[in-house]
């Protein structure tokens, strides 16, 4: 009988073998090859000794950090207010809906909005600020990247807050806590699991954004993703591209570890 159940999971294990383990091994194999196709540690050595790659990694981190923080700052209150809204499930769906519009199209819309003659600059002009460069700037890049990532931050936070039992909130109120105290000592700590998954869902993809760096930042922001894309599609130095891919996977594990669930004993109260 146990076998029946095990058999049902076979496609999943097959998937892990074929589409996770095999590709990772291919990447590892490639990263130990130099450009002539023979075994070497040259790629790893180049990566860790080149100032270009190290600065780039650092910059990617910085951008991903800023994007995650801004997305969190905007999403958290939104998620919190959403859980208290009427028809909250409908609002949530409406909020996720923009992700169904093709990301390239939204990017092209932003090009129009941020350009010299675009909507934002017309507004600036109107209130007397004059035309500001937005397209092809770091600021523009952060704005658009944050926009793209907000739904992925909002959803897990909303779920976490929504799952908090209302009776906890009422209990806190009955004990004389005001709204702020209730938020600080009940809701906020209990929503941390959502914040963690939100940070995971935003930070790691932000490290490797690549279409946006070209279309919105005009290649003046270079992230790990941009460089990897270059190595795979243009230079065809798949070895170096794979090496950076492995680095990203390792970073991912570190982020998961840092934001992952702690053991129960380690938590206060």
């Amino acid at each position, binding site marked *: 009988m146990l076998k029946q*159940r095990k058999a049902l999971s076979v*496609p999943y294990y097959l998937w892990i073998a074929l589409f996770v383990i*095999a590709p990772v091994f291919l990447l590892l194999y490639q990263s130990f090859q130099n450009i002539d196709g023979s075994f070497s540690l040259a790629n790893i050595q180049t990566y860790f000794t080149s100032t270009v790659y190290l600065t780039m990694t650092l910059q990617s981190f910085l951008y991903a950090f800023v994007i995650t923080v801004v997305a969190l700052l905007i999403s958290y209150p*939104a998620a919190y207010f959403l859980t*208290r809204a009427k028809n909250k499930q409908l*609002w949530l769906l409406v909020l996720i809906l923009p992700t169904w519009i093709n*990301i*390239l199209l939204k990017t092209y819309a932003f090009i129009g909005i941020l350009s010299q003659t675009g909507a934002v600059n017309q507004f600036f002009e109107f209130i007397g600020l004059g035309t500001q460069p937005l397209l092809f700037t770091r600021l523009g890049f952060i704005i658009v990247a944050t926009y793209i990532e907000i739904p992925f931050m909002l959803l897990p936070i909303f779920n976490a807050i929504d799952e908090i039992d209302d009776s906890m909130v009422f209990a806190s109120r009955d004990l004389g806590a005001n709204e702020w105290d209730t938020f600080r000592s009940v809701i906020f700590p209990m929503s941390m699991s959502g914040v963690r998954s939100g940070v995971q869902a935003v930070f790691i993809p932000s490290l490797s954004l690549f279409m946006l760096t070209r279309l919105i930042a005009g290649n003046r922001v270079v992230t790990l993703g941009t460089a*990897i894309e270059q190595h795979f599609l243009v230079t065809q130095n798949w070895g170096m591209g794979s090496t950076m891919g492995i680095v990203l996977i390792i970073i991912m594990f570190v982020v998961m570890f840092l934001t992952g669930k702690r053991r129960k004993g380690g938590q206060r109260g």
Partner: protein
Amino acid sequence: MIKNNKASTMYLLIVFILLYAPIAYLIYYSFNAGGTMNQFTGFTWEHYQSLASDTRLITIALDTLRVALLSALAATIIGTLGAIGIYYAKLRRTQTILLSLNNILLASPDVIIGASFLLLFTLVGFRLGFYSVLLSHIAFSIPIVVLMVLPRLEEMNTNMLTAARDLGASQLQVLKEIILPSITPGILAGFFMAFTYSIDDFAVTFFVTGNGFATLSVEIYSRARQGVSLEINALSTLLFLVAMGIVVGYYFIQKQQRQRKKTAQIDPTNHEKAVTP
């Protein structure tokens, strides 16, 4: 329940406006006679008319939907069963390893996924086209399904499982009668996310497509050489309206059902919810 005050409603409203601004922009310019997304010169239906006669674009839109639906369905089935597998894994360590493997694809940049899948297809001599795209979409959607389903499994009331088994239910019966019904919200969320991932993907498809098969993102990208044609704006306006209609319709059907259920009886499968007030 605590209600929102004016300030917080304002805040929500602003976030909604910001999230919909680019989409409103796209829709607004789909009626632009000027032909670019820059200066609005006059109202026209022209782009909708040319869309209606552009069979290539319509076929591609249909193909995109077909890939998204099929891949989301397959990924949901495989992912759900996988999540159950992880849930039942005896050792804590096995669980952690399985989950880490699961998350690799979720966290890898699209470019790497695309390139490594291309390598894989090359290695086995797989023909590029509809099936390579479908397989890849299934592959990169599975982990998100697992992540959506697993928390529901962990929340499941284990007493119910033991009780059912004590009463002589077979594994399959337990799965069908108890596990699946209680994780249905997670499964639906998984399907939803898988569908979104597939619709949204550009990089992976770009790598693994071939022989004339294209999805909307790839087609938009290749047409963008001339600057995006407003026909594509028209298409996304229509798709957006359809999606909006489905979402709102689905919500109201759900709401009606829920109300009917409330007056009938409490869902017997959801033990936990039935106990807590």
